Structure formats: structure tokens, C-alpha cells
């Protein structure tokens, strides 16, 4: 059974067709990148998989269960970070984690584990309001990992981070991949992020899947990397952010 099954999902906001009939299937343990420019429909698609938005039509199954009937079970087994969440500024990191841990009925040990995993040990008593962007992203990841989710959704986890912090986050996720208990769905504009972390790459634009597959199957002589592939597919660049390319 696939970990996630998306069948012909459509979502429209008034006159915007955000997702125009997407189907995909994700196997347990896979690391999947949803790659696409601004407004492609990545967040809408991911939030439908997370049960936070309802598709207009189509079906989404996680471990064979749909959101309508199994919301309670599914909430316990997934982890996620939203594209933009601001945690309460007046709580410390440890207090934020304690709060979220209580929703899953988890204790101190697990809180300490995610703190170590995300490298926040020295910051546990810092107010969220005083954290840097990278530290906030790590906190969001720590919260997402609390319940040892079998399915993890991260919506642009590294946007706005410097290359160094981005690398730190990749290392954490790579560690998870090696353990093999987690399926990851990650959205990004960064080619390199998709290339290093993910084996399964889905390129979407304007609410549709343009190409999908393993990295090496997607590339050929004409498209030697994802950047070129994307330009060949759409005639436009994926992202204006050339930071990574410059630092290479």
C-alpha cells in the first residue's frame, strides 16, 4: 500500500484554479520534493494532503485512510510545518515544545530528543520572539517531529535561510532518511534541495504536474540538471534565488 495516494484532486478559489487535477502516489520511506515556482499550487496541494484544506473533488488517502473518516488517527501519525506559522513570541522554545507535546500526550524524553535532533540545546530558554529565522525554522521542524510522524510534510522549510543554515537542516533531514521510518513531502523552489534530499521529484506549475520521477530518470542530454529541465519544460526559470548557485 502506498503511504500517500492522491487521485485527481482539484481545488479552485473563486476564479483561481490552484490545483487542476493532480494524481500521485508516494511509497513508504520515500523523500519527495514538490518543486515549482510561486503560485504553482504547492501549498494548496500539500495542505489538502495534511487535511487542512478540502479538495473540491478527488480523493486523498494516507496509509489508506481518508481525512473525512479518520481525522483523529491521521492527526496523530503525521507531522507538518506550515509555510508561515508564527509561534507565540512570548513563550520559550521549551515551553512551546511542552505545549505541543501535551497534544500528543508525550513526555520530557521526546521533547529532549527533538531538541537534540534539531540542535536547539543552547536555546531552550530563549523566547521565540528573539529567535533568528533559521532558529524558528528549526523550532518548526522540532514541533513537526515531536510525535515521530510516519508522514512528514514540510512546506518550504529552508526559504529565507542562509546557505549554512540550509545545510544544517538538510543534515537533520538526511539523518531521518537514513533511519528510514519517515516519508517526507517537501515543497521548495531550490533545485539543489530537491537534488540532494529527495529521490522522487515532482515538478508542478499552474496547478498541474509537468514531470515526475527519480532524479536520474528526469535528466538527459538536453536537461543536465533540474534548472535546465525546468527551463525546457516551461520556458521560465524556477527561482530568482541564485544564492546557492553563487556559493557553490
Amino acid at each position: 500500500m502506498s503511504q500517500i495516494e492522491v487521485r485527481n484532486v482539484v481545488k479552485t478559489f473563486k476564479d483561481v484554479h490552484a490545483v487542476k487535477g493532480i494524481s500521485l502516489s508516494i511509497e513508504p520511506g520515500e523523500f519527495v520534493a514538490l518543486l515549482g515556482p510561486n503560485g504553482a499550487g504547492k501549498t494548496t496541494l500539500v495542505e489538502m494532503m495534511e487535511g487542512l484544506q478540502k479538495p473540491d473533488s478527488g480523493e486523498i488517502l494516507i496509509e489508506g485512510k481518508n481525512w473525512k473518516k479518520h481525522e483523529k488517527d491521521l492527526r496523530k501519525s503525521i507531522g507538518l510545518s506550515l509555510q508561515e506559522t508564527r509561534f507565540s513570541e512570548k513563550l520559550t522554545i521549551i515551553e512551546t515544545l511542552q505545549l505541543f507535546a501535551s497534544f500528543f500526550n508525550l513526555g520530557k524524553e521526546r521533547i529532549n530528543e527533538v531538541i537534540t535532533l534539531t540542535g536547539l540545546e543552547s536555546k531552550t530558554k530563549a523566547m521565540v520572539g528573539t529567535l533568528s529565522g533559521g532558529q524558528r525554522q528549526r523550532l518548526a521542524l522540532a514541533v513537526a517531529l515531536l510525535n515521530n510522524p510516519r508522514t512528514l510534510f514540510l512546506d518550504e522549510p529552508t526559504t529565507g535561510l542562509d546557505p549554512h543554515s540550509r545545510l544544517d537542516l538538510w543534515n537533520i533531514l538526511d539523518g531521518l532518511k537514513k533511519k528510514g521510518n519517515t516519508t517526507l513531502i517537501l515543497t521548495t523552489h531550490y533545485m539543489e534541495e530537491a537534488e540532494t534530499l529527495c529521490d522522487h521529484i515532482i515538478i508542478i506549475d499552474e496547478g498541474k504536474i509537468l514531470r515526475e520521477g527519480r532524479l536520474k530518470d528526469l535528466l538527459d542530454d538536453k536537461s543536465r540538471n533540474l534548472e535546465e529541465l525546468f527551463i525546457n519544460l516551461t520556458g521560465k526559470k524556477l527561482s530568482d534565488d541564485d544564492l546557492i548557485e553563487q556559493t557553490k
Partner: protein
Amino acid sequence: MKSIAHKQLFQLLRAFCLEMLREPEVLFWGIVFPVLISIGLGLAFTQSAEAKFHILIVESKPTAVDSLLSLYGHEGKHKGQPAIIWETNDKALGKTQFDFTHSDWESAIISLKRGEADLVIADTPDGLRYRFDPHNSQAQLVYMKLSALLQSPASHDADTNIAVEPLELKGVRYIDFLIPGLITFGIMGSIMWGVSYTIIERRSQKLLRRMVATPMRKSSFLIALMGMRTLMNIVEALILFLFAYLIFDIRIQGNIAALALLFLAGNLAFAGIAILVSSRTSKTEVGTGLINAVQMPMMLLSGIFFSYHNFPEWSISAIKLLPLTAFTDGVRSIFNEGAGWEEILIPTIALSALGLLCFAIGMKRFKWH
């Protein structure tokens, strides 16, 4: 399962309390400000009775008033102008001072219009006449006092006013009226702003959405938020009461357990309204408008600072239906009239029912993301 729910509730309550305590302005507006208001208003309205009136005399030749003034009055100043001052003293009613100045008719009328003078005495071919606006109750009071004084000038110096006995019982002073009102008013404000704002702000920051993406019980979140505000209101009310007790010797004459129950019902009512008000919007401007729309009428009509019995007859039965009116009247009756369970039964049930109803509708319409 039960312990999970408890743990969630406890952690949510703890988080809300921590956030509130780390917001120093909250402590100022919630605690220091009401105490300052009550002290200010309390002192302003409990000063000893002392009345001072300005009388203008318009005459063509000296009259009987002048001879009385030369006998009982003394030279002095009124707002820098030379005047004749006539003071009387009454043990029960306090000191009264009349400042007399001479004037011509034209400027006397101007002074009356400006409110600089209370009354004009004019000599006419038919004798002395008092001239004032009979709709002005202050002027009427001056007329009564002055005409009595001019008729028997000597009797007023000699504390003979045995017919008046000042009422200085506990519970009839203005401050006794004011403090319970300030307490209930503070509760309404603290809950309406505290609960609604917290919800709207979290919704706009997508924190609500993040929280409902976990197995958190939605009701736990709202109950913890209401609980935190209620706890804070208990502290605020106790502090305000303590000050009022120390400074003005305010007492609770009725049943304290009944007061506690009514207090909780009032908190529940406003918390329910606050949740309903903030159930959908994620814009703080909209929230502010809605909160004001709910609070303003009650602030003006529910008799917090002045009794609503001065409003027209037909409106009073409607005013009594407002939750703040029911709450305030109930709390006042316990403070000042010695009320107990029986008297507060209906307001307590009505307020709780309103709170639960609003809570239920609010929960139903609630937009978590």
C-alpha cells in the same frame, strides 16, 4: 484518555498565563488602571459638601438686599472682582457661600448665558425679583436656598437644621455604587479584549491552524483561554476590592459564596460573547469594531458610573436585559443590599445560559484556519 485531556488543558492554561504575565502593559491596564480610576472617582465624589454660588444684583438704587449684605456679608473677591460674600454654615448640609456682585442688566444676562452666574436679583417697580431659568435645577436650588436665607437671615448661622439627618450608612455612598460597577466593567473589558484579541491574533499568524493540525481538542483551547482570563479577573477584582476596602472602607454585606458564583457566571457570559465575536475574522481592525459595538452600548447604558434610572421609563426594561446590567445589578445588590442566593439566582442562570449559547454558536462558526 481523560488524563490526556487534562494535560492539554493544563499546558494550554499555563501557556496563556505565561504569555499574559510577560506582557507588562496587561498588568497596568488590568490592575493598576482600574485602581487609579476608582481612587480618582471615589475621591472626587466623596468630598465634603460645600456649595458656592454666584448671584448678580441689578438695581437702580440700594435695596433691602444691600442692607442685609452690609449686616451679614463681608468684603471679598469673586474671580478677582470685588464682591460681597455671605457664608452660612449648616452641620448637616455643609457650608454654603453666596458671592454677590453688582451688575447692569445686559452683562447680567451674558453672565447667565455663560454659566458664570447662577441667578440674578433685579429690582423692579413691583419690588425685588429673582430671575433664572426654571428648567435649570442648580438655579432652582440657589433660588430656594437664597430666598429662605433672605427671609430669615439670622436663623441660618445657628445650626438649627434639626429636620435633616445625614444618611451615612454603608452602601449608600457613591463609592459603594461605583466599585461593584468598576469590577464588572473591568471583567467585561478584560474578557472581550483578552479573549477576542488572542484568538484573532493567533488566527492571523496561522498559529490556530498549526494547533488544529495536531490532535489538540478544539474545546480545550477555548476553555483554557476563558479559564486564564477568569483567573486573571479574580486577581484583578480582589486587588480592586482590597484597595476600596482600605481607602473607602467598602464592605460586602451579602453572601460571598453567591457573589463568587455570580462572578463566574458573568465571566462565562462575556467569554461566550467574546468567542462568538471573534469566531471568524482574522483582521484585528474588524475585531476592534465588533468589540466596540458590543461594549459601547453596555458601557453607556448599564449604569456603571451613573444609575440608569435617569433614562426614559420605556428604555429601562430593555437596559435591564443587557448582560452587563444584570451582572452589575447582581453584584451591587450583594455588596450594598446584603443580597444572597435567592436574589442572584435568575441573573446567574441567565448569564450562564447566554454564555453557553454564545459559546456553542461561536464554536460552530469558528474558523480555525
